[in-house]
């Protein structure tokens, strides 16, 4: 394990000189975000990070029955006896709707092409013209299990665009919600992996642990999925001292239980062997195709938005970067498990140093252009970018690049030369969510 804390003085550039092109706001056009063509917007602190490109999800937003897949496969494969194995859009292996077209001569996956857009709810376009607060209702429901990250990024971008001041307490609530949800999602991934590996007792116990996190969220915020928890201008619920004590107690139990389960998983050879070397992503590939989040950190790149672009309260809290180098499903799970541990730690620090409610009013990040805000947060699956243009308190344009959009090409590439039975381990290990790909 390596713990890297980037220094503010030394610009860190994980992407190599050819990727570190100068940023100008004009690069980050709306089309860039919405259609995910190449673009390299920059962030605060002078650190440049390209918006990972190559997410070729240029689906149609009109009511055409035709689905647009990613702009053609990454490779075309022909050969004797080779056929396309269609998987989806409705399969129990992936509980969401999305399709994969696998080229194979049987058993082995020669290439895999995800076809997305089945769940396109036209959310981003439908928000245009709505008040910022109403837009938040749809953004939370863009991807239910990443609702806190999406809401936080959207609100930050919208507040920056509209110049809305935010009470400090609200920012702490946003961070708290995100960390709770990060734990839920990572634990859920672990449960799904265990399920795929037929570790039935482990899967049941881990699912129960994930459910417990939903119940914690439900009792704190009144909603199991944190919908409505984060609002522009102020939280639906402030945490008083008793709430914090109660939350701290439940989180302690939760983390103890997690440690026990994780130790058992690490001791289970069948489980470890099954995910080791499954769906590997090489470092160069991850950088070239723009991987984010645990996928990126699992192949040796030290990048976490919470450390690289820290906003209140993250810039006051200690966070250890989890990093691995093997790039396979096991490495991704190891990264996730350590992030669960670091999230418990973050939550503990937050509960200890909770600001006086509602706290001072903070001005939002300066807009990148008049009326236009950009924000990125580390969602459970990785870097999430929102680009919101607003005027008169209403959203006029909105762009978004989700972690799953960035990572799905890596999933597809990693599975090449794998076998059919690798599919579920690979899919779960990336933590991909079709809902945020399709928006």
């Amino acid at each position, binding site marked *: 394990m390596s713990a890297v804390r980037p220094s503010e003085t030394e610009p860190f550039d994980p992407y190599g000189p050819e990727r570190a092109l100068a940023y100008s706001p004009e690069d980050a056009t709306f089309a860039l975000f919405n259609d995910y*063509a*190449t673009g390299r917007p920059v962030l605060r602190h002078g650190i440049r990070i390209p918006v990972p*490109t*190559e997410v*070729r999800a*240029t689906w149609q937003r009109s009511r055409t029955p035709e689905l647009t897949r*990613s*702009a*053609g*496969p*990454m*490779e*075309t*494969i*022909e*050969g*004797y*006896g*080779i*056929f*396309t*194995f*269609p*998987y*989806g*859009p*409705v*399969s129990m292996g992936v509980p969401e*709707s999305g*399709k994969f077209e696998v080229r*194979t*001569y*049987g*058993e*082995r996956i*020669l290439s895999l092409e995800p076809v997305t857009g089945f769940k396109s709810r036209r959310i981003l376009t439908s928000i245009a013209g709505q008040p910022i607060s109403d837009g938040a209702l749809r953004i939370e429901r863009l991807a239910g299990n990443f609702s806190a990250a999406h809401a936080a990024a959207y609100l930050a971008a919208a507040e920056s665009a509209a110049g809305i001041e935010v009470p400090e307490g609200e920012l702490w609530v946003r961070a708290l919600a995100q960390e709770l949800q990060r734990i839920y999602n990572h634990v859920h991934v672990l449960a799904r992996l265990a399920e795929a590996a037929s570790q039935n007792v482990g899967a049941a116990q881990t699912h129960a642990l994930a459910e417990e996190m939903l119940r914690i969220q439900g009792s704190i915020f009144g909603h199991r999925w944190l919908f409505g928890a984060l609002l522009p201008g102020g939280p639906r619920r402030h945490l008083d001292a008793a709430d914090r004590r109660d939350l701290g107690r439940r989180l302690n139990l939760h983390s103890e239980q997690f440690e026990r389960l994780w130790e058992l998983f690490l001791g289970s050879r069948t489980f470890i062997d099954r995910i080791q070397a499954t769906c590997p992503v090489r470092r160069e590939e991850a950088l070239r195709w723009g991987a984010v989040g645990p996928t990126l950190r699992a192949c040796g790149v030290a990048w976490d938005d919470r450390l690289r672009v820290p906003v209140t309260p993250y810039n006051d809290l200690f966070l250890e970067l989890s990093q691995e180098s093997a790039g396979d499903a096991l490495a991704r799970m190891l990264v996730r498990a350590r992030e669960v541990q670091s999230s418990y730690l973050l939550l503990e620090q937050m509960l200890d140093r909770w600001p006086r409610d509602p706290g001072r009013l903070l001005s939002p990040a300066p807009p990148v252009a008049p009326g236009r805000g950009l924000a990125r947060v580390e969602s459970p699956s990785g870097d999430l970018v929102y680009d919101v243009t607003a005027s008169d308190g209403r959203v006029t344009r909105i762009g978004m690049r989700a972690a799953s959009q960035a990572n799905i090409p890596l999933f597809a590439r990693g599975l090449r030369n794998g076998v059919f039975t690798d599919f579920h381990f690979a899919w779960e290990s990336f933590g991909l969510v079709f809902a945020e790909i399709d928006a």
Partner: protein
Amino acid sequence: MDPAGLLLTVSVAAFFVGAALGPLGRRGPYLGSLVGSAGLGIVAVLVLAGGSVTGATWAGPLGDVEGLTLDPLAAFFALAAALVWVATSVYSLTYDDRRSPLLAITYALTLGSIALLIAASDQVLFLIGWETMTLASYGMILQAKGPGERIFSAAFVFLAFGEASTLFISLAFAGLRVGTGVFAFGPHLGPGDLATLVFVAGLLGFGIKMGIAPFHLSEWLPIAHSSAPSNASAVLSSTLTLAGAYGLFRLVSLLSSPPLWWGAVVLAIGAISALLGALFAAVSEHSKGLPAYSTIENNGLILVALGVALLAQSDGVHELYVFALFAAFYQALAHAIAKTGLFLSAGYIEHTAHTFDLNSVEGQAKSGSRGEFGGTIIATLSLAAGPPLAGFVSEWMVLEALFQSYRFGQSWVEFVGLLAGAAVALAAGLIVVAMVKFVGFSMLWRPRPSGAGPPESRLGGVVGAVGAMVLAIGVLAPWILRFIAPAVSGFAGSSVAAPVGQLLAVPDGWSILSGSPFGILSPPMIPFIVVAGAAVAAGYYALGRPRPRRRVPIWMAGSPPGQPGETYTSFGYGTGIRIMMRSVLSTREVRAETGESSGAGVDPVAAYNVDLEVFDAFKLFYEALVRLGQGTSAVLKAAVMPGRLGRYLAYILIVVLLVVMYVAAFY
């Protein structure tokens, strides 16, 4: 000449008369073959029921009396061949409506020469028949459609192996002649170096024709690479190998007291052939290559049974000796008939789907011909050893014989038996994959193509009739075993009884017993049990609460089913085996970049051609042969056209004489 002898003579002659009528039309040779095979079959039945029959005789060029005769051993093979030929000849009358009359002529000549060699009373006539058979079937392969070079090289390989086989057989016969002093089949050759020479040369010579390892190439390649006409492939695969088996059986029957290692060698070669044949069949995508590989597997099983018989003979385990012999004979019979059905079915598929590639055959199941459908299912089930069919009974007998190798005195023989048992069991499993693939991808799993031609009901009818035969040979096995007992006796040199008897409540004579008893099988009871089971189920269904039938469309994970290019290929069905058995098959993936197409994304999209190749090491040998063939092709093409057969007959005689003189001088 008694009437039976006259019928034998006329039958053999009918093939050649038919061939001679060839220039007048295609029907002549096929009708001649039909008449000839029917007659031959009748004589064979008479022989098995009553005893040897002698037809025309004359003085041979070397002074020996030679002529046509059918003893029970020959009659068994004549009967099996006749059953096949009646079917293929009727089939050919409909199937062959497009090709040159040369196909019909060479077809009749091939059949006639096999009939001749089976009915030959001595070695010279046998060799003349043998060589004619090789040349005539060479001519048959040349009638294939497709790229000329490919056909010629396939035919060349066939001819090269054929001549090699003739040479070895000549050597074996010469040894026999030297040892016994006569050309006629009859006197036995005692043990000794000469017997060993005869045995080894004979095993090589006939083994090449049977396509056993390491000569399996000679079996599949000419058929698969030439895409030979289907009536031709059926004859090539079913009865040419039958002729090889006959020759081997005849030769071995003339060698008394074999040493122990003969049996072990035959057993080992048989087991390896069975395994290789089954393995390659499972990964073959060619609707005729696959049955051809399966022929290798079956011939391997014949050798396994023969090997066990020889071991038992030299070890003095008489009961096992007899049982294994019956197994070998039954395996030969079962395979010949079922394989015919498969090849005729491949021809039917080719007729309607215009392809030999199982990947692109569209399902025939709904195209109308019930005979074709039923016949193919029965034939494939039989070859996959499904009860109660012919192949099931014969494979059961072979395995039963093999499992009793513990009775042998020496532990190394038991060990060979054990290894062979494992190989045969694996082969039995693999061949199921091959057969499911054949019937599944040609008949069951795909909808009928919209543009399919009208069903050829007559072709289908023949396949159906063959299927009925396969069923009968399976269910009526105890009676057929008794019927062919004279043939086995002829081989063993003493009268033996069929291994049938009684156990439990099954009526006497309805069961096959191996050992006393080691295992028991009653094929006639299986239909009773099946019918009884079905009756119970039907009764339960009729008397019970009526359950609504819930019928719903296909579900393909929400995608529209039946999209082009989205169906499982037969290649994909076999890939598991390609990967699992990669050490034997030398499986490797060959990936070639075929260019870049620029997608809408940022990076250009690479295009690849990916092939998963399996590799038969013996192909190297084949490639060398072809290179040789290309060098001499012009000469050969001119020399071996069917019109110059006379020269070749003279050549055989010269070869035989030379070898006889050489061996005589040596000993």
